[in-house]
């Protein structure tokens, strides 16, 4: 893990922002098309773009020698959770999807989840990937050693906890 200057941090941030502005906005348009035209090709292209954005983000991280920043991870998980919630609510309130579109949306969400898990496992290993979400362990650690888990929580780089 390299230490970055303000300028390097901004350069990375600028690139990430530029990538996600493009990928996310086009993906949103594709999802809109997929749903309004009931066309699974557009929906799957939208998921494809999200995954492409995620992969591009990982490449940038690798080049810059960093991992995902905490804020980026939170924003990403929030958007993902929002997507799942919107999909579930739409199913509950009776929005009708064609079978192809339903399959595309559900498998797309699962695919994103699998990709995230795959990334975490390959970067951090199975145990550390699990530890990222293991709140109970951090409670125990706080009792045993007051500073360890707090330090972990405040880390500015999820990928650096190796």
């Amino acid at each position, binding site marked *: 893990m390299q230490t970055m200057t303000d*300028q390097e941090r*901004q350069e990375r941030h600028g690139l990430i*922002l*530029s990538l996600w*502005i493009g990928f996310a*906005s086009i993906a949103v*348009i594709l999802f809109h*098309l997929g749903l309004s035209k009931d066309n699974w*090709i557009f929906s799957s292209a939208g998921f494809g773009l999200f995954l492409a954005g995620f992969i591009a983000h990982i490449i940038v991280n690798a080049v810059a020698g960093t991992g995902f920043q905490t804020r980026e991870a939170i924003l990403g998980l929030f958007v993902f959770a929002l997507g799942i919630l919107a999909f579930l609510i739409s199913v509950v309130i009776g929005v009708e999807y064609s079978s192809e579109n339903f399959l595309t949306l559900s498998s797309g969400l699962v695919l994103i989840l699998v990709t995230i898990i795959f990334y975490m496992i390959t970067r951090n290993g199975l145990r550390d990937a699990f530890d990222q979400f293991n709140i109970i362990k951090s409670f125990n650690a706080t009792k045993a050693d007051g500073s360890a888990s707090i330090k972990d929580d405040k880390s500015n780089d999820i990928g650096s906890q190796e």
Partner: protein
Amino acid sequence: MTSALMFFYCLYQALMIYLAISAARSTQDAGHYINGNRDMPAWAFMFAGAGIMAGSVGIYDSMTMFARFGLQYNHVMVSILCAGFIAVLMMKRLWLAARIMSARTLGDILAVYYGSLTIRLLSLVVLLFFVFPLSAITLAKLGAVFSVMTDGMFSQQVVVWSVAFFLFLAIAIGGWRGGIMIAASNALMMLLLLLLVSGVSYLSFDGYGNLKQMFDTSDSIRSLTGVSIDTLPGVVQFTRGIGKSLVMDGVWTSLAVASFGLALIGIVAQPGFCYLAINQRNLRGFAFQQVWLTGGVTIACLLILLPIVSGGMMSANLIASGQLTDLGMFMALAEKFLRFDAMVAAAFVLLVLISLQLVVMFSVLSGANIFVDEIIQRYVLPDLTERGRRLGARVTLAVVLFLVALWANIGPEYAYVLNSVTFSLSAQFVPAIIGLCWIPWIARPGVLAGLVLGIIMVIFTEPLGIILFEQMFIDLPWGRWPWTIHSAGWGLFFNVLTCLIISGFRHRDSDHENRHRLHDVFRSEYPADAGGRRVVTAIWSLTFIWMFFAIGPGAVIGNDFFVYPIFTGERSLIDIPSIWAWQMLGWLIGVLLLWWVAYGAKTAVGDIRQIHKLTFDNTFDGSGNPMQNQDAPSWIVRFLNRFVARK
């Protein structure tokens, strides 16, 4: 669509302002404002460079030209590789020369190397063409498109001034660093929008199907518009030029295509683009940008995707018997998208707006900053501090943008006439740059004579010179692009010829030691190693063979080659016109050659650890009177003395 377009456009502008603010906050130092302290990241150059190339060739213009000329114009996209080859040859050495000679701009490097103030001034004149006529036209187009697409909710004038104000805000906040990052971001967005729009066009309203139908019935199209849309109209047509005699089947003969490729070299040889390269932190990204992003992705988008989108324009134009204006064709296609989906229509318009905005932003940003470096600090206020330079750059930017917006509003038609020479004039610097980078015996007298002759040829084979001359004196016997050869071709032919002949006689002039010192450093410390003389011969032989068949006279073989292959004598069943397949093949082989030159011969890559500094005797900086140590023409000396004497 109006609300969707407004929403996307405003959101996008807000994000660009945010990017500018974040760039400004990360570097509080005033030195970063003008040129990013020569510490720009590789990705910004990579994406911005490719975006500037695509924007300068023109998404909007390319679509309308395709709608009028079909695949014969599409061949121009292959010739963008000419610009790629020149960029590969010159950017690394320009970057090195700037550091070795402690020079800041292209004009500065050439002036110090050749010991000529005239070259510096000529580079500034070319820069003015990019800053004013090109930007004014582009801004006027942007205003017209936005105004029409929002159903006149905003007049063209309002849009022009609003965009100019936004651009001022973004650049004044972010400076060079912020501006180039915005340009890079725009380039990425353009790529993705083009993918979306062409994908929708292909999948949903059968844009390719329409196009194919038109290719299949191209004879009826020719009878309507007089243009052959799926073949090149010969190698050359010995006509007197556009406006003076009729060109049969369209103007894009293979020599027109090749010479237009020479004009496109002007995009990478312009002072602004060179400034972008010079201010990079290192060489990382040079080769990638030139080979894969410009040569690969940009050309692929323009060559393959854009025709699929433009098919709708072509059919609309045909329905109107070829009578539609550019804006009319654009509206027809936008309405087609609108009937499909408002968001996609907004994305289509946004693609065009961003490409136009990118060109305006880069031109005014580079123009204002180079003006501060080259004129204000050098001649008017030499003792300017860093903060003073920043203020000067902001004031210059405000003045430039004000003038550009004013011009875009009150007289864009004059800008069209002036802009006809912009790229061609810029391309006239190629012999000087190649001399600086590779050929030490190219000497100042040759370069200057070639430049002047080249510029005269360019001006007199474009409307600028022809109209002026004919208004003041008598009618010229030729029109625009005589023999269907672009003005850049005429200019460069005479330029190179003159430059080589005169340099051959004058290369041992008193300044030859200076030139050789730089080349000695290049050779000893930063060599380009292709792997031996035979490899170099092979590279250039193959490159010239490729040029002959891909964009030169041999390209006409592609008119029928894949439909009636010579070895079978029967019609083949490929689903696209033969010339399009030929163009794609030429592009693929060209990219491979470009890759070989850039990476294999190490002309665009290298690990630079240390810069060997040189001081040149004929530099205009320093304590001496800048007017006394070189033989500048007396009128230039008198003109500059007016400024110098004031301090």
